[in-house]
């Protein structure tokens, strides 16, 4: 092993400095063993970020290995910048979800914006053209003093970045809960289309090939962002954070176009974006995948500021930058394209065959680390797990008195911010640019996009019910999968693959680790039952403030396929009427339900369980029924149960939300008229159920199809009038509410709760 003299001006390596870099004694011992000497300051920084939770997945890796990741459609599974699932016609859908939780809490606008920027780069580095963005957001209680500011900033940041990029933001979810008061969650998902034989990967191959740096200059932004994402918050310490990264979507748009243009040619060997831990992780990962080495001249890195040290350049998280390995002799071809797009492209190093990651500053080596050990010998932990002491209490079925007035319950639920209309949010997102959005946000359970140059369409949805997951991580996680699958099935698609973003608390707490393991197992078992693989994902741990961890929040991004885009349906009740059929067997539960929380202030009870045979039969009926035109609109029962789902369909009307004032309906739920039993069937939450709208002429067809596919189906009523009416087994009207009143509650609930001015209601 070569010795490297300490760089003048760098701090001396000592125990305190090692600890500040978040390396444990054992980890530091590995560093010493790998290097055969003491690390330089630069090297210490590199180990620190590469072995951070965020980059190394040291805590989660052993659990993630249990996910199903294979399948006949999988073109690229986890491990690359993003996953790819084949949809035929020589095309793949490339997608991934990622968290930007901590940065968005410190600086909501920039944190959320750069989160979107990062996930876009992950997708277009694979040579996929991004066609859609989604986001899953979790905020604290609406009345918490910080919430409004965070909501406004995060939504504006997502809008600011995505809109400028010209990628439509078509879906997502927003939920509120006190457990996020000190740790909001911002999960962003990007979906792109790639030609299946033109998928680019980040594999640094071919010793002698030049390495180019392209995009924005490097500043001192977010140094140690990766380690920050691997640490908990202490209230009041937000001031001591590193320089926040500021996004420049304009530069990223140029980078997107330049990279896609570049990848049409054969001058590029590999490409990788600089995300967390910037230049370090991108270059180390590329060399690691290629089994090669890299020699980088840090003095050639374009910089925004004077006097930056190698340590700062390597660890900076400045945005809108890429690292490219070009074919030898093709540097000028690469440069030419970037110059066309007004971007810098600079040769900063070469691929080597010595397996070493070597950094040179003005001719002097300042770091030299064997790539293999740096990546392969990253720590891996099987952290202790323990069932939470309060688990039984969490799951105890609550004794709830009946509210009695079901109209009132329905209005309260519709107006609760987690259920209420999110138009204030998605109205700020350009959700139509690129002309692919067939079913818009607010119009259905999933957005539907046409796949350019084909007859196909894809459906995308982001989901998690963290109340259910908290109550029972295993069952709750299965429910997340089931709901995501139902959401894409309700627009006519077949679920084909997922990405995930696992947001959890402090993994050093055995109860959190237990939740993590149970949730991951639940997700995996659910996906296996469905036959749907995970192709990409992300883990965000240490979402904890002042020793309080968030609810386990494993968000799922589901992609479904429609062979014919003409099949897509929405959830609104059509103006020209039809029958209402309840598909599936309700097994309603008031435990862990929105009803219990909103109407009784009780968060307790076991979540509804998934019965996969029934769930799959439901998905099949939805998919087939829509394809055969028996079903003209559908919506699954989720938060708030069957009554809320029905009301949402009535309020929405039409195929897209701007069309029509809604439609009334009258259904009979055959509910036991006893008050609490009645509330249970109306508002209890269940898996495996959806409302379907069927033209009268196809009612018999749908019932027959359901029977054939083994799914319960019950004709409950029909569309008509301007009221939402639900009768019970005695034909008594349990709910009888004017559409206008329901609509006002649902449309106004979000802004009223968070304290925002409501956008004008259009005709």
């Amino acid at each position, binding site marked *: 092993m070569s010795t490297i003299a300490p760089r003048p001006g760098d701090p001396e390596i000592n125990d305190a400095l090692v600890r500040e870099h978040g390396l444990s004694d054992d980890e530091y011992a590995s560093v010493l063993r790998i290097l055969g000497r003491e690390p330089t300051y630069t090297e210490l920084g590199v180990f620190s970020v590469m072995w951070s939770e965020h980059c190394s997945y040291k805590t989660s890796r052993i659990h993630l290995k249990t996910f199903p990741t294979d399948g006949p459609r999988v073109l690229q599974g986890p491990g690359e910048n993003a996953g790819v699932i084949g949809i035929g016609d020589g095309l793949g859908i490339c997608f991934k979800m990622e968290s930007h939780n901590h940065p968005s809490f410190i600086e909501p606008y920039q944190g959320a914006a750069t989160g979107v920027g990062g996930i876009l780069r992950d997708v277009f580095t694979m040579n996929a053209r991004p066609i859609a963005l989604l986001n899953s957001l979790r905020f604290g209680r609406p009345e918490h003093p910080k919430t409004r500011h965070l909501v406004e900033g995060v939504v*504006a940041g997502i*809008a*600011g970045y995505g*809109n*400028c*990029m*010209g990628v439509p933001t078509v879906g997502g979810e927003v939920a509120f809960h006190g457990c996020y008061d000190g740790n909001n969650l911002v999960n962003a998902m990007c979906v792109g289309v790639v030609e299946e034989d033109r998928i680019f990967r980040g594999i640094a191959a071919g010793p002698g090939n030049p390495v180019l740096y392209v995009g924005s200059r490097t500043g001192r932004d977010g140094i140690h962002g990766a380690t920050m994402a691997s640490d908990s918050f202490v209230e009041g310490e937000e001031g001591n954070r590193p320089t926040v990264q500021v996004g*420049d*979507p*304009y*530069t990223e*748009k*140029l980078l997107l176009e330049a990279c896609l243009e570049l990848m049409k040619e054969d001058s590029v060997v590999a490409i990788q974006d600089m995300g967390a831990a910037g230049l370090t992780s991108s270059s180390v990962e590329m060399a690691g995948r290629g089994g090669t080495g890299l020699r980088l001249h840090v003095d050639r890195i374009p910089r925004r500021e004077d006097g930056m040290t190698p340590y700062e350049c390597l660890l900076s998280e400045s945005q809108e930058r890429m690292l490219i390995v070009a074919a030898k002799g093709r540097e000028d071809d690469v440069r030419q394209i970037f110059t066309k*797009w*007004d971007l810098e492209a600079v040769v900063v190093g070469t691929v080597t065959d010595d397996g070493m990651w070597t950094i040179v500053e003005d001719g002097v080596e300042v770091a030299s680390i064997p790539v293999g050990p740096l990546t392969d010998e990253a720590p891996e932990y099987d952290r202790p797990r323990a069932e939470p002491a309060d688990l039984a209490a969490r799951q105890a079925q609550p004794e709830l008195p009946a509210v009695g007035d079901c109209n009132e319950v329905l209005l309260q639920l519709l107006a609760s911010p987690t259920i209420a209309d999110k138009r204030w949010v*998605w*109205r*700020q*997102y*350009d*959700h*139509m*640019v*690129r*002309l692919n*959005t*067939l079913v818009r946000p607010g119009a259905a359970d999933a957005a539907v996009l*046409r796949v350019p140059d084909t007859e196909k369409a894809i459906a995308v949805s982001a989901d998690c019910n963290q109340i259910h997951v908290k109550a029972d991580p295993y069952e709750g996680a299965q429910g997340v999968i089931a709901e995501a699958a139902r959401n894409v099935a309700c627009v006519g698609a077949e679920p084909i693959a997922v990405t995930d973003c696992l947001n959890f608390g402090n993994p050093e707490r055995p109860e959190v680790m237990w939740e993590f393991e149970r949730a991951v197992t639940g997700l995996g078992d659910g996906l296996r039952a469905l036959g749907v693989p995970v192709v990409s994902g992300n883990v965000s741990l240490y979402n904890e403030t002042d020793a309080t961890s968030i609810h386990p929040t494993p968000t799922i991004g589901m992609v479904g396929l429609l062979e014919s*885009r003409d099949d897509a349906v929405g959830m609104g009740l059509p103006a020209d009427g039809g029958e209402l059929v309840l598909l599936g067997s309700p097994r309603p539960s008031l435990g862990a339900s929105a009803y219990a929380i909103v109407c009784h202030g009780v968060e307790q009870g076991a979540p509804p369980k998934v019965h996969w045979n029934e769930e799959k039969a439901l998905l099949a009926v939805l998919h087939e029924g829509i394809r055969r035109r028996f079903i003209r609109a559908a919506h699954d029962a989720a938060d708030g149960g069957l009554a809320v789902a029905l009301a949402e369909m009535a309020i929405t009307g039409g195929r*897209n939300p*701007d069309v029509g004032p809604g439609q009334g309906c009258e259904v009979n739920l055959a509910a036991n008229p006893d008050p609490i039993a009645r509330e249970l069937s109306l508002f209890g939450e269940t898996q495996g159920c959806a409302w379907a709208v069927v033209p009268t002429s196809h009612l018999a067809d749908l019932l027959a199809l359901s029977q054939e596919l083994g799914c319960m189906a019950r004709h409950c009523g029909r569309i008509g009038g301007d009221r939402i009416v639900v009768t019970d087994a005695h034909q008594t009207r349990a709910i009888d509410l004017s559409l206008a009143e329901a609509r006002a509650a649902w449309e106004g609930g979000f802004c009223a709760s968070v304290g925002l*001015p409501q*956008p*004008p*209601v*259009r*005709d």
Partner: protein
Amino acid sequence: MKFGIVTYPGSNCDHDAYHVVKHVLGCDATFLWHKDRDLQDVDCIILPGGFSYGDYLRCGAIARFSPITEEVARFAQHGGYVLGICNGFQVLTEAGLLPGVLRTNSQLKFICEDASLVVANGHTPWTVLCPETVVAPIAHHGGCYYADEETLGRLEGERQVVFRYAQRDGTETDEANPNGSLNNIAGITNARGNVLGMMPHPERNAESELGDASGAWIFRSIIHSFLEGTRA
């Protein structure tokens, strides 16, 4: 008829405009690069939506100095048809090809939704075939039209206001005005009528899959006007 669609750095509706004129309406179409000066013999130029130069400083402010914009101005002065959509409209006002200015929306937020427009002047080359109302989505942060009183008076007097925000049934109301534009203005032409700027995106509602397709009438109108003109 051949359309040219300008690509500025940061344009992002250029492909949408191209798709509609080429694939939906079957015309010839080509992209015009901002650094070029060659207009490639096009008959109508579209300045598309997006965020030219990031919309930094002011929307459309920096794009007006691109070489291509100078050529577009010359083309317009000779009576060539120019359509600025959204960011393209902003560029046209900044470049002085259309009067007034587009300011930040009165609610200070980006808005994306369908807008119903009443056709205020059906006798322009852009509207001859249009029905009384069309639907075209808006997607902008700075679409609040403003001009001083004298300019506004002239625009109204000369019937240069072509589209106004309205209710679905065509009535102009304050509630239908999404961004605070004076006189509910959504689109105007220059005095000669060959240059149209509008904030709503007709290209987003030109196919029945995406809406009622009424936005296509604006493109059909200009194709019709062009063919009439060449025939005359």
